[in-house]
């Protein structure tokens, strides 16, 4: 057993459960996403089928407009497929209500964005505390948020600042803390180092890699092949298809 950033996980789960014949954590079955526009329908994802297992670290690569972000949005339950089925932990997202999808995002999925996407009205620790409060876990929520922030290198002085008062790297650490506070199984990262200098980018990737080693499934969109090197699987996309 190893003490992770959040909770404790099995060391041997690094390879995921694929080799052990487990059910996929995420399953895409012939998923197509079409955006109807006045100028004509845009097919953002075309017949994508994919199994992702618990403990996987997947990098999604491809040129702009290839459907990477659309795929990540589908995986994050921010959108539902036009056709085909997407199962997350056995639940078909097409059959879930908007509130159910919100709860799934809140409880099981952590988002890490290129632009950090912290709420500027809230202080750093409050941003981290927010998902706990959404879950009505208000007892010791501040203490929990502080613990996670400490583990990610944000000290007491920094955590009472608003996001605008923090550097990019610090903001991304806060964003990671927020993503982790509800102990999600899945971490979705959209260009997590895109707005950071290379040194800070490496630090962030080390954190993500560590989280994966503790058993979390990490799915990351990136343009950078060096960053993709942290993943144990790489998916390349072109024109909405996996190639």
């Amino acid at each position, binding site marked *: 057993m190893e003490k992770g950033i959040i909770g404790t996980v099995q060391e041997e789960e690094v390879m995921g459960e694929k080799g052990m014949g487990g059910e996929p954590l995420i399953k895409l079955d012939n998923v197509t996403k079409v955006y109807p526009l006045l100028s004509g329908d845009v097919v953002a994802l075309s017949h994508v089928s994919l199994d992702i297992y618990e403990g996987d670290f997947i990098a999604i690569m491809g040129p702009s407009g290839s459907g990477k972000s659309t795929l990540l*949005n589908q995986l*994050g339950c*921010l*959108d539902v497929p036009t056709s085909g089925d997407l199962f997350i932990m056995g639940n078909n997202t097409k059959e879930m209500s*908007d*509130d159910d999808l*919100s*709860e*799934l*995002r*809140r*409880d099981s999925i952590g*988002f890490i*964005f290129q632009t950090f*996407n*912290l*709420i*500027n*009205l*809230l202080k750093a620790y*409050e941003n981290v*505390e*927010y*998902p706990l*409060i*959404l*879950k*009505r876990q*208000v007892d010791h*929520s*501040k203490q929990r948020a502080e613990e996670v922030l400490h583990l990610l290198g944000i000290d007491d002085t920094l955590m009472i600042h608003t996001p605008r008062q923090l550097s990019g790297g610090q903001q991304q650490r806060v964003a990671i803390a*927020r993503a982790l506070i509800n102990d999600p199984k899945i971490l979705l990262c959209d260009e997590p180092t895109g707005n950071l200098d290379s040194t800070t980018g490496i630090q962030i990737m080390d954190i993500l890699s560590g989280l994966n080693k503790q058993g979390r499934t990490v799915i990351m969109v990136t343009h950078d092949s060096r960053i993709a090197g942290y993943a144990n699987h790489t998916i390349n996309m072109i024109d909405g298809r996996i190639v």
Partner: protein
Amino acid sequence: MAGSHIFFDLSVRNVRLNFLRSLLASLGIVIGVVAISAMGMLGANMQLILTARLSQNVNIVSVSPISGGEFGGGSVSSTNNYISDIQVQQIKQVVGHNIVIPLHTGSDTIMIGSNKGRASIIGIDPSDVSYLVTVAEGTDLSGTTGALVGATLANDSNLNLGSRIKIGSNEVPVMVVGILNATGFGTGLNADRAILVPDHWYTSIYGNNGEYNTVNVIVNNINDLSSIRDAIDKRLNRNTNVVRISDPTSMLQNIQQSLGTMTSFLTMLGGISLLVAAVSIFNVMMMSVSERIREIGILRSIGTKKGEVRRMFLYEAFILGAVGAGIGGLLSFIIGYLVVGLLIGNITYFFMPQSLVYLPYGMAIGIIICVLAGIYPAWKASNLNPIEALRHE
């Protein structure tokens, strides 16, 4: 962050962040609440004061024989129908502690100097005079054989204290011992053109001892008018209708209704300003949604439900309304007091519940209008596409 009040907390922070804009929006609500409350209080105070003034004169139930001669109902000697002593006793039985005043009424010729005319002659127990009329000059009828004259008759005929009037064909002289104030409203005793004489004097001239033309019941509580009228009707008109009973309830109701309509109209005028304020709140809320699209996207991406986003914006509208209504309520109290004092000149009824009720009324309308104005922006915010919201710059 205060637990499950996170959405309220976020709304408060956003209001603080845009303090000036929020304050200006709330100012509209302040004006609206002041307009509604102050106008309402003004109308209510007018209603209360007028009702009180009218009630001094209109708390009389008048009972008369169905074919009898009330005021000016023919010459005294020709009246055959009357209310008997027994009926007066029956009336006293059913009206309880309220005062019963039997009256002899009629009209006769009068001579003032060399001028001849006609006037109402009212015979009354001297001890009852003060219940029905007030003496402006002179004394009442107690211990005298003189007469009191109505304000109009005294003015038109140049009657003064000590003037002599000759009454009837026998020209029985009587001296004016008092001149009455104008009686104005009321069905009980219209004495402005009448001569009031002691009842024993009246019966000594006209006879009719124990036979009255009118019985007035002075009702202590104006709200009992209807029940007392009904009780007399039930007692005296049991088999056939022998007496006519009139009370000023309907007149009072009409006046109150008119004043109520005026109060509503004044309040509606105030309401218009509140509607203008609602447009301002709506505008501010729409701006708030537009400025926070990305934040809404973030909140949705980390698991905030549509209903929770809606609640956050409705809280914001509520805060604007509550702040506006709070300040407005305070100012309404001060301005209402000044307006009532200056325009009506009487603040006796300002602290009555019927007047002060317009404060919470105006405040509640202010808050409700704000929340209503926030519904569409809140709905719009909650239905934003999370992906598009996250991409919003």
